[in-house]
């Protein structure tokens, strides 16, 4: 006996297909235009992209030349904010995952982390201006801007480190305690080495977040224009102001008249390309780890 499709099962099958199609369409309507837009940006920027574009300063009131000065500024801001945020963020996550008990105080800390992640970037800018530039007397400088970025990106590192730490199985720790190791020895020699990949992912995501931000650095250290020695990677000092890629894109696309069209597209693509590449790296690291995990 074979199964006979009745009108009822046929209509049910049709409705299944329709549901699938509708939800697929909704997903595609979101994803496809975006991919097209990104492709369009790359297409527009293609003629100008070259090593020369990366390694020359902007010229002629930012209407010609390359992006060396903003590119180096962004690298400085990202690296310094990373150096500040990583230890604080990792240790904060260690505290939350290894030391803190399940109580109201821990809840308050977790709530603070969530809220810190939700503070608007422009409010971070106001904070950086009030606390670092004026109160601490750092002035508008790379240091003040990096500190602002570090605090802004701290929740990214805390969240992903916490996830990585909690993925380390409890018996690993118990075995270590049982041979007489202290809490910190256990963390240092067992927990951290076993979660280093996940921590690395968080750090990489922090880099991409910090590189793209504009508002927090606008009033704390980034300037419209500053020429530096081309090809010298140490051209900025900690107390200098700097240009930044994100701010440069904002400037040449809204504040400066008569900029050749390819210039802002080129800047946007370099910024977008590096952020996406860094993110892709994070995803790659995560997949590698997942496939290599031994437990």
């Amino acid at each position, binding site marked *: 006996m074979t199964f006979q499709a009745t009108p009822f099962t046929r209509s*049910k099958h049709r*409705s*299944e297909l329709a*549901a*699938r199609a509708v*939800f*697929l369409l*909704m997903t595609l309507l*979101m*994803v496809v235009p*975006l991919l097209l*837009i990104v492709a*369009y*940006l790359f297409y527009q920027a293609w003629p100008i992209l070259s090593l020369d574009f990366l390694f020359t300063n902007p010229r002629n009131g930012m209407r010609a030349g390359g992006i060396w000065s903003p590119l180096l500024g962004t690298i400085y801001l990202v690296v310094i904010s990373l150096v500040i945020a990583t230890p*604080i*963020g990792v*240790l*904060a996550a*260690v*505290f939350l995952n290894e*030391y*803190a008990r399940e109580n109201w105080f821990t809840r308050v800390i977790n709530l*603070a982390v969530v*809220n*810190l*992640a*939700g*503070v*608007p*970037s422009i*409010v*971070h800018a106001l*904070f950086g*201006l*009030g606390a670092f530039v*004026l*109160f601490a007397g750092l002035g508008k400088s790379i240091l003040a801007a990096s500190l602002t970025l570090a*605090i802004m990106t*701290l929740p990214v590192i*805390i969240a992903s480190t916490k996830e990585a730490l909690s993925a380390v199985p409890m018996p690993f720790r118990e075995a270590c305690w049982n041979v007489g190791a*202290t*809490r*910190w*020895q256990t963390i240092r020699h067992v927990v951290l080495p076993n979660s280093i990949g996940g921590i690395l992912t968080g750090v990489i995501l922090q880099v991409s977040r910090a*590189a*793209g*931000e*504009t*508002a927090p650095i606008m*009033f704390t250290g980034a300037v419209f224009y500053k020429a530096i020695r081309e090809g010298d990677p140490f051209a900025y000092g900690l107390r200098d102001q700097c240009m930044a890629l994100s*701010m440069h*894109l*904002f400037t040449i*696309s*809204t504040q400066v008249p008569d900029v050749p069209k390819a210039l802002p*597209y080129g800047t*946007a693509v370099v910024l*977008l390309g590096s952020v996406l590449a860094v*993110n892709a790296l994070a*995803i790659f690291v995560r997949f590698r780890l997942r496939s290599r995990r031994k437990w």
Partner: protein
Amino acid sequence: MSPTPTRRRVEILAEASIEALIRLCGISAILFVFGIFFFVFREGSQFLFHGFNFREFFFSQEWYPTSQSHVRYGVLALIAGTASVTVLAMALAVPFGIGAAVFISEFCGTRARESLKVTIELLAAIPSVVWGFIGLTVMNRLIIQLFHTPIGLNVLNGGLILALMSVPIIVSIGEDALKAVPDSYREAALALGVTRWQLIYRVLLPAAKNGLLAAVLLGVGRAVGETMAVLMATGHAVTIPTSLMDSVRTLTATIAAELGEAPVHSNHYQVLFIIGILLFSITFVVNLAADLIVRGVRRQ
């Protein structure tokens, strides 16, 4: 052989100090949140307590911060600007975001799910200034051509950009919420012979209601706080919008646009910090609500 007593004392001291450091870093998030509130409040406090007019601030749409004779600090139009782009963004992002979350969690195989999630994660990484640039160039031109308006920098443009920006967060949190619905619910419904539509509308969405609400709230928080994209994409008109084609200015964009020109510690400068306090409070409440809802879900 046991270690010498002095060495042990050093080790104990080192352990104690590293633990103290860890505890200090642990509470750093609390310190920073308070620090943000404190310093933003501090910069605006002098004017807030002397000469600040609450009624004018919240109920006047006259924003003339640099006028010589007729200085007015009313942010009603700016609030309307923020509200209009946020509402439009949510009207677009919520159905599509939840639709995509349903598709990813209910219709996809493992492979398709992983690749869609990666794509959406990459979309979430696009910097806001690049979004602003997209609004300024691509969207602007599209809107001018499609609607025959002179300027394409308006509520529609800002709302579309914000929708695209907040969709990833809605999708990822929404998908988590749907994944948390036990499979026994699905099996019980399918055993009763329901179609996929009925399963989604009658079982999954109600069961995941709280998580989805939290996802929407986080999207709202993101949209309200977004700065560069709306600064570049909404045009600059401090008016209460009457149609989608009106240009507006949001609270965030106003701070970004005017802080550079306001003399330090002038009234104008301090009012911008007061707007900062307002924004901080709004996002604080929204995030708190989302967090409480998510926690409520977990406890179930």
